[in-house]
């Protein structure tokens, strides 16, 4: 990746984060979890996935399934920048004249499947992956889960079954931000090494810095592995990334800021100067 490409990805990531911050008011959204996977989405849609606003009906396109649905502001924030949806639609967040709410749905162009209930989309993605293989098509099928989401039993079922069926066109990305709703993952239900767990399940597994575009490119350049095993990429991230005032804080999961705070946070994205925040942070699930 040359410097120019790197700069353009960074610039795009800033715009996505601005969109997330703008959605964190008038009802709010899951700001922290959205910020942690913003860079991942920017990388995947810019450099890895063959999916554009023009090939969404093409059965040969690549698929991204967002299983940790509550970070949809990152997805829509990106979709608005790369032409999947009109940017002005983000202003419809939580308005009933549109379908932009706290979890993804297929009324939004580019969303492959709805989610919100955790632990569902690994198996849905596996169904798509198995059909691509049945038809001899070489689509990449990506599913993104959280790390807290790995508490759900259904993800471990899916992990066993994907390995048994040798779904090597499946790539599972864990947004490893070390937090779940209200607590640090390692304090509540410790996951320790996700890589080792999946290796024990028969997967290709690797760790990567989920905010480093060059490292992401290095990891994804050899995927899909096509070695008879599904692949998991554990992307180590920071919840709230880009806003030091909310980074790594258990109480900044769902945020509903005042308009003044949003302005201050938009500045913070640029200059890293901590915004003054007085809003009570809602915790809903």
């Amino acid at each position: 990746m040359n410097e120019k490409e790197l700069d353009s990805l960074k610039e795009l990531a800033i715009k996505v984060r601005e969109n997330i911050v703008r959605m964190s008011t008038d009802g709010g959204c899951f700001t922290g979890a959205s910020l942690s996977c913003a860079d991942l989405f920017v990388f995947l849609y810019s450099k890895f996935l063959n999916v554009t606003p023009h090939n969404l009906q093409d059965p040969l396109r690549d698929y991204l399934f967002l299983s940790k649905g509550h970070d949809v502001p990152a997805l829509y924030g990106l979709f608005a920048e790369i032409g999947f949806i009109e940017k002005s639609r983000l202003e419809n967040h939580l308005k009933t004249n549109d379908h932009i709410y706290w979890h993804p749905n297929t009324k939004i162009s580019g969303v492959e499947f709805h989610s919100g209930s955790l632990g569902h989309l690994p198996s849905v993605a596996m169904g798509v992956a198995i059909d691509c293989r049945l038809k001899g098509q070489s689509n990449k099928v990506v599913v993104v889960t959280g790390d807290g989401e790995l508490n759900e039993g259904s993800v471990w079922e899916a992990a066993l079954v994907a390995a048994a069926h040798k779904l090597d066109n499946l790539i599972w990305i864990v947004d490893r931000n070390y937090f779940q709703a209200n607590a640090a993952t390692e304090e509540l239900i410790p996951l320790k090494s996700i890589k080792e767990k999946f290796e024990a399940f028969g997967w290709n597994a690797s760790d990567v810095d989920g905010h480093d575009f060059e490292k992401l490119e290095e990891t994804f350049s050899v995927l899909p592995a096509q070695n008879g095993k599904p692949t998991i990429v554990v992307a180590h991230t920071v919840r709230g990334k880009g806003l030091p005032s909310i980074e790594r804080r258990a109480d900044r999961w769902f945020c509903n800021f005042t308009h003044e705070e949003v302005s201050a946070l938009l500045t913070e994205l640029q200059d890293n100067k901590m915004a003054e925040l007085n809003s009570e942070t809602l915790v809903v699930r």
Partner: protein
Amino acid sequence: MNYEQLITETALADERFVIMTAENRALVRNIPSHPILSKRFIDTGITEQTMIGMAAGLALRGRVPIVHALAAFLTMRAFEFIRTDVGIANLPVKLTGFIPGLLSDGNGPTHQAIEDISIMRGIPHMQVFAPADEEDMLAMLPEIWCSSSPAYTRANLIKPIYQHDKNFEIGKAEVVSEGSTITFLVYGMLFNNVFKAKEILEAQGHSVGLVNMRSLKPVDEEAIIAATQQSELTVIVEDHFQIGGLYSIVAEVLLKNQSTTNVHSLSLHDNWFRPGRLNEVLEYEGFTPEKIAAQSIQVLESTSKEKV
């Protein structure tokens, strides 16, 4: 023709069909080694949730998955996956529930799917079917599988004692007979015993109606209204909890049509049935032809007395 032959014929003729199971191969024993269909046979192991999620993914790609598992685990272990992945997206996933209702005979309450009709019909777009016996099931499945809706079918391998109408239409009941004294509304494996109960009552001189409901959602409202208006008493017989099954469906239909009538429910009242060999269970729970006939007459007589 049996279930496996029908599914083989169907899937060979149309490659949209894939056959899935959560390691319940009772109905599809030979598919895994079939020269053509083995590729479209997917056994996910004992993972009802993952099977349903995968079925949704396959359906997204244009497939029609026919999925198999024990009715209790399919409808309850995987309930949220059916509701959320299949139901919200309204995908044509075809669920076949094995050993539903009393057919789980000696397994015990863990395996008793006697709330399956109730919970499946509560899912928007989900169609619900309960054939009377194996032949009835084979007459119904082609229509069920070629519809574009998600569907749940209670598998039933009981041998027939009555020659059913081969023409099945989704949302239509089979009216076996009309009667002025008692009309039975029944679905699933209890059909045979109700048919025999009808013969007992007819031998005693009663005029007895019998409706094989077949399609519980959509339901044949006209058949229900007609049956309840033509008889002194309507008896609803089902191997299901009284709550949420056909008794509730009939109540909803009558209320919607501002109609009222004498209705009696022979069903499972808020308790799991006593496990055992099927004949023993039918006897213990009061579902033999003799007991169905006797209970119906008793109710008829007590309601007639009230009227006097």
